[in-house]
């Protein structure tokens, strides 16, 4: 789908300070959060905080995660097994819900707007982005917070190792959030121009021709951290302040050699 989503600002988990108290001031809330939820929420807050001077409302919060809250799911499952279904602590069960990050953002900021979570393996973030693009294009939303997070855990790593996933890829994790707008606050602003789902993985020449791009960023290089929503972080790398003239970049995802996607961004 062709679109015009201007990237007003973004934050990634790599940009987080070591002490996130300022981002999530409520100590009880912070303590209950697993590392995954804490990282995701803090990254979202980081993206929003940079925006605090604008004072404008957010019209939608759309989050994405390939595997969700693995640590909490595993913790609760372990307790069920080891404690023979008795005297279970509900906290990890509550926090294992896939929409926990989006819900906590709404809770912390009192946002009553549209708030959904996509959990569709390697295309979770693209699904969230497509939803955001449709809302910005139809004018039902002007500013949307879109983000993604996935965590690496010892069990997930070990299981995927046994499946042979790490022969060609390097495991990883991370969170990235973007604030998208229908109209740019300043010119020039990086702009997502197309979200496409080609049937097969396309080679560089085809991508250059089909999407009229000058540069290609791939999520599946041997150096890249490989997790279902890594594409969100790669997208922020594409729009990181670049000197000089405006170019078109294709961000290509093909998580575990399945379901390719192409996000075209001009910046």
């Amino acid at each position, binding site marked *: 789908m062709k679109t015009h989503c201007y990237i007003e600002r973004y934050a990634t988990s790599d940009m987080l300070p070591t002490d996130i108290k300022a981002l999530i001031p409520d100590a009880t809330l912070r303590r209950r959060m697993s590392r995954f939820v804490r990282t995701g929420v803090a990254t979202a807050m980081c993206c929003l905080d940079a925006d605090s001077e604008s004072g404008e409302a957010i019209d939608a919060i759309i989050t994405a995660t390939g595997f969700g809250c693995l640590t909490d799911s595993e913790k*609760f499952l372990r307790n*069920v097994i080891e404690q023979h*279904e008795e005297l*279970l602590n*509900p906290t990890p069960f509550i926090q294992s819900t896939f929409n926990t990050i989006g819900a906590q953002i709404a809770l912390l*900021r009192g946002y*009553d707007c549209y708030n959904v*979570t996509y959990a569709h393996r390697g295309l979770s973030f693209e699904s969230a982005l497509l939803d955001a693009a449709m809302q910005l294009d139809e004018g039902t939303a002007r500013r949307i917070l879109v983000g993604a997070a996935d965590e690496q855990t010892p069990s997930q790593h070990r299981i995927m190792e046994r499946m042979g996933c790490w022969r060609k890829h390097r495991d990883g994790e991370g969170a990235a959030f973007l604030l998208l707008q229908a109209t740019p606050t300043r010119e020039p602003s990086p702009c997502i121009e197309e979200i496409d789902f080609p049937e097969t993985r396309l080679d560089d020449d085809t991508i250059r021709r089909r999407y009229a791009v000058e540069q290609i960023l791939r999520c599946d290089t041997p150096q890249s951290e490989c997790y279902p929503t890594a594409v969100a972080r790669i997208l922020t790398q594409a729009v990181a302040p670049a000197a000089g003239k405006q170019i078109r970049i294709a961000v290509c995802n093909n998580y575990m050699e399945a379901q390719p996607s192409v996000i075209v961004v001009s910046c």
Partner: protein
Amino acid sequence: MRIAVTGIGIVSAAGIGKEQTLATLRASRSGLVAAPSHFRTRHALPVGEVAPNNEELARRLGIRHCTSRTALLGIVAASEALADAGAATTDNRRTALVSATSVGGMDLTENFFPDFIRDDRSGRLRMAAHHDCADSTIAIARYCGIDGFTTTLSTACSSAANAILVASRLLRHGVVDRVVAGGTDALCRFTLNGFKSLQILDPAPCRPFDASRCGLNLGEGAAYLVLERADETRNPYCLLTGAANTNDAFHQTASSADGQGDYLAMRKALETAGLSPLDVDCINVHGTGTPNNDRSEGVALRRLFGNEVPPFASTKPVTGHTLAAAGGIEAALAVLSLHHGEIYPQLNFTTPDPELNLVPVTRYIRRPIRNILSNSFGFGGNCTALLFSNRP
């Protein structure tokens, strides 16, 4: 642009397929059983279980490989919906699948995990491979021959309602021409114990909105609607005229005392349809039977409708609370209710809650319905309302 419902597929404790489901509802029967039978658990709690076990479901579908129960249930419902719409996925209409699930393949993972935690070299990998939410969606798409856009939503108990909302957006934007939208969830130890640990499971059949209500009963199932642009269809069931998702922004699991999220979702759904509360003839309420949900939802109903709350009922005493599938199952029931001009009664209600003084429909009624609301609320303050309308 108007969006039409052209097909329905449904499986739950109330039956497999539209006809069995309608027979159960019209006869005021419950599909609940005294305890789960498809998995081992020490909790003898009433649940809305789909009768056939995995082997029987797989045989019925001609599936031979390891498949999660979530996917099996989803395949039963999605293929019925496509057949009901008379839709051939081989025609040139681009078909999408927007599916919702909250447990994914957890029913298999929880059988893999005991071996794995004893020794991380053991446990059959094929049972861990279906863990994520996307797995059931991809299995359904493959079985049904859906090769267009495919995605999965997971927003707890409002998931499938959100899938239907997103489907209407994909159609409005011309991203696709037809969407199979809904959700699927299988009962498993993980969720049964999760809700047990939250102390919101009623050891008896649930009693939504009743003064004596003290919790919910879990259920399993799947339901999908086929949605298309109205001007490209002939004789649809009805139109999806309104849809809204809002957030209660109050608590991770509890709903607010003023039912703000519930209220906003219903109000915005009406706004998107350009209708007023007086146009609503019936509501399939979320009505889980927990003291908290029904109080918030009841307050929201009073805020929106005042003293003119339309006839409403919760179908959860029949199906159990099917979590991510609930929004799909209840949307399908709302569509059937509208189409056949009938209101399915709520079971187990005897005494109104003095705080709310709301009385659901407790007997099967036949009457024409113009517009029906279907409410679905979930953890994380996630609130969704869908509005279905007969063609004007």
